[in-house]
């Protein structure tokens, strides 16, 4: 098998030659990772601008003529879809997954490098199709990121002619790209680990990515199924999801279909999707916390079990998005119970992060600041999830700003905090230089405080009952004028947070050239990616000889060892022990 060669010895069959093969048609997982990351961040910036426009309308209604109800809904839709799928999923798995998997398991590359390259180009195609929808007549779809039929394909919704088709096609292409990438990730993790790297010795980052990838492989088909059937309903006049309808006065030819069927399919994908984003973030933040607190992750096994349990449970909670959808109300009992059960492993993860800090020796570096910020925002967002998961509490709150605040806190701010932590953490390895500390700290403080200033008050608009996806509230007898003031303040915070991200981008680019040169392992980390012979790692990652793993990924501050960390590829005899001998019993210390 030629693929084995990749893992065993340096295979220069796809060693890049010129610029084009090195940076464009590259099969090197690191280059592909960076391509994924740049593309994802680019579309993410578009989505960020869209959200700023939405906020302007909500904060200062009737002040801007470039936004009307149609474009508002289109921006809402595209913002949501881009952020969830094209930014978070792509950046966490396509970006970090690609970069870290081979390095962390001690492989030379993915097992199918060509497929990996194909995965990126297919992803890029899906992004291009998505962006095209901004330029067709009628604009992109404004059906909300959930794309619920019937409205997604009826005339009363903006972008119902071409926008929705491009959206569905783009999603289908994305799913193909994800499947190619995903097959690669799981196969690589299962088949190409270095000698001695048992599953339980892997850093939690890999556990998060592995579980999330498996979730993605099994959940994305649900989205594909619903997209295909909706396209059929639209283009071939079938009635999968479409019942008899009178749309804007026209009697349509549909009959008998079920819109709720779509919702079941959508959320069977949609809920695992939350964890496809969250689990890699959980994993990466665990590694950042352990490294910068100089302490092993507390309860490693519990952390792994929790990731696996959350992954499994995420397939049986989907209908908690549908408590008020008109489905059989008896489902509520089951789904409320499973949803609240999933809170238990999630809570344990939070405890373990905090307990990792306890009796650690915490370096408050920029990545660590973001990780601590993550614990705070995730606790907040996770706890409001218990509100919405509990079926009767969801009744008054569903479809209000409480929901918007909740999922932005838990799925927007929190994973993004981890993404920043991860980018700052791995930046020296990826580029060989430090980022600028001062700019990084400034970026952290404004992002952390700014996002909280956006989303804490937003929950209270939800308590009040302000509905989401409203272009304007208009006159109302129970929403006080002060709510508008609150909205304006949220908008101001949002604009500030948005602008601050430019500093991040500037920092990333500036440091590429002017950043201080970084050593191979600046944070004193244990996992394999920090032990490469070159920084940044060269093609093939490991020079002549693959690493052999002798310990788990969290040997920080091991009693008796002189250094406060022992890399995974170091044998006991290579370690300098204070007493000259490794201590006998490592379990009880």
């Amino acid at each position, binding site marked *: 098998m030629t693929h084995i060669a990749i893992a065993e010895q340096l295979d220069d069959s796809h060693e890049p030659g010129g610029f084009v093969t090195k940076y464009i048609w590259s099969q090197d997982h690191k280059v592909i990772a960076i391509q994924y990351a740049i593309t994802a961040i680019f579309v993410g910036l578009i989505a960020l601008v869209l959200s700023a426009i939405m906020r302007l309308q909500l904060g200062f209604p009737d002040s801007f003529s470039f936004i009307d109800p149609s474009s508002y809904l289109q921006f809402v839709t595209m913002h949501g879809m881009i952020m969830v799928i094209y930014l978070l999923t792509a950046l966490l798995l396509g970006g970090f997954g690609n970069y870290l998997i081979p390095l962390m398991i001690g492989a030379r590359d993915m097992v199918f490098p060509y497929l990996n390259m194909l995965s990126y180009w297919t992803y890029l195609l899906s992004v291009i199709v998505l962006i095209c929808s901004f330029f067709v007549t009628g604009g992109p779809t404004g059906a909300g990121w959930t794309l619920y039929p019937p409205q997604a394909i009826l005339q009363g919704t903006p972008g119902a002619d071409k926008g929705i088709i491009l959206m569905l096609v783009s999603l289908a292409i994305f799913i193909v790209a994800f499947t190619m990438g995903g*097959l*690669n990730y*799981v196969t690589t993790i299962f088949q190409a680990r270095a000698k001695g790297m048992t*599953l339980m010795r892997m850093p939690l980052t890999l556990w998060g990515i592995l579980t999330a990838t498996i979730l993605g492989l099994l959940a994305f088909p649900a989205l594909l199924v619903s997209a295909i059937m909706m396209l059929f309903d639209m283009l071939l006049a079938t009635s999968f999801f479409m019942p008899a309808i009178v749309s804007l006065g026209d009697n349509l030819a549909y009959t008998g279909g079920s819109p709720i*069927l779509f919702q079941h399919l959508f959320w069977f994908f949609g809920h695992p999707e939350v964890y496809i984003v969250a689990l890699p973030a959980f994993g990466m933040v665990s590694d950042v916390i352990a490294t910068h607190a100089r302490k092993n992750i507390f309860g490693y096994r519990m952390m792994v079990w929790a990731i696996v349990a959350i992954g499994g449970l995420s397939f049986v909670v989907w209908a908690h998005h549908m408590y008020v959808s008109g489905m059989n109300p008896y489902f509520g009992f089951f789904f409320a119970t499973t949803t609240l059960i999933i809170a238990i492993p999630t809570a344990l993860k939070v405890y373990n992060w905090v307990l990792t800090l306890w009796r650690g020796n915490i370096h408050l570096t920029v990545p660590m600041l973001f990780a601590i910020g993550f614990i705070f925002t995730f606790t907040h967002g996770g706890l409001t999830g218990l509100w919405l998961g509990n079926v009767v509490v969801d009744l008054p709150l569903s479809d209000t700003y409480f929901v918007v605040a909740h999922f932005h806190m838990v799925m927007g701010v929190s994973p993004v905090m981890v993404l920043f932590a991860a980018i700052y953490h791995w930046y020296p390895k990826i580029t060989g230089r430090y980022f600028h500390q001062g700019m990084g700290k400034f970026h952290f403080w404004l992002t952390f405080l700014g996002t909280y200033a956006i989303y804490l008050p937003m929950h209270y608009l939800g308590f009040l009952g302000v509905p989401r996806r409203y272009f304007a509230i208009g006159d109302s007898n129970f929403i006080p004028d002060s709510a508008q003031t609150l909205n304006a303040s949220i908008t101001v915070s949002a604009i500030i947070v948005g602008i601050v991200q430019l500093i991040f981008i500037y920092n990333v680019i500036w440091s590429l050239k002017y950043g201080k040169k970084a050593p191979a392992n600046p944070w004193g980390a244990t996992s394999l990616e920090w032990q490469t012979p070159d920084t940044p790692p060269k093609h093939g990652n490991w020079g002549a000889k693959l690493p052999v793993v002798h310990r788990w990924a969290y040997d920080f501050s091991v009693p008796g060892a002189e250094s406060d960390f022992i890399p995974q590829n170091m044998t006991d005899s290579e370690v300098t022990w204070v007493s000259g001998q490794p201590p006998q019993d490592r379990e009880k210390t």
Partner: protein
Amino acid sequence: MAIFTGLREKPWLSQTPDLASAANNSATRNPGKTALKFFLAVVSMLFFLFIITFLSRTQFADFQALTGKPWLPLENSTQLWINTGYILLASVCFQISSAFKQVNYPTKLLMITLAIVFSVLFVFGQLGVWQTLAADGYLINTNPANSFFYLLTGLHVIHLLGGVLALLRLLFRLALTTNHQQFDANLKLVTFYWHYLIIVWLVLFALLTSSTETFKTIAQLCGF
């Protein structure tokens, strides 16, 4: 299940490593097989979801199964049985070509060619069924049962054609490199793939030609 016992391992204890364990033994590695298994899991999920959707859609008032009464088109499913024969033969050919060591290369290639021919016959057979249905006025949007029939058989054909493409690529590479060992390993995967195609087809066949009463029973069992 090794994974589950593995999950209880305490990785911080220094005695754990077993450098010769299966996971680290390059001789037992087979990325192609792992990838194929996961890929088929994805495809199974896809068909599973379609089937669940189909079953729940059968319980709506406007659903009219394609069989169950003498005048319904699939009551006579001869053509579908013939098609089933084709794909079965294709699978048998693959089995012969990959399972027996003593089979020589010309025979092997002949078997593969036959398998491709039978697969293509299957595709045309399915197209024939489509044409018959359409000619009888059973169009894709006439009834959800029809929609599902076209959709599911269509997807299955695409799934099959994907396999044919992969196979052609293998043959092409064989012509270039003549690396027989590699080819044999991959041929095993292709055979596995075709067996999987049959299973999916048999499930679809059974479902699509079920009568309204059968759907009712299934739906009751599943608790729709």
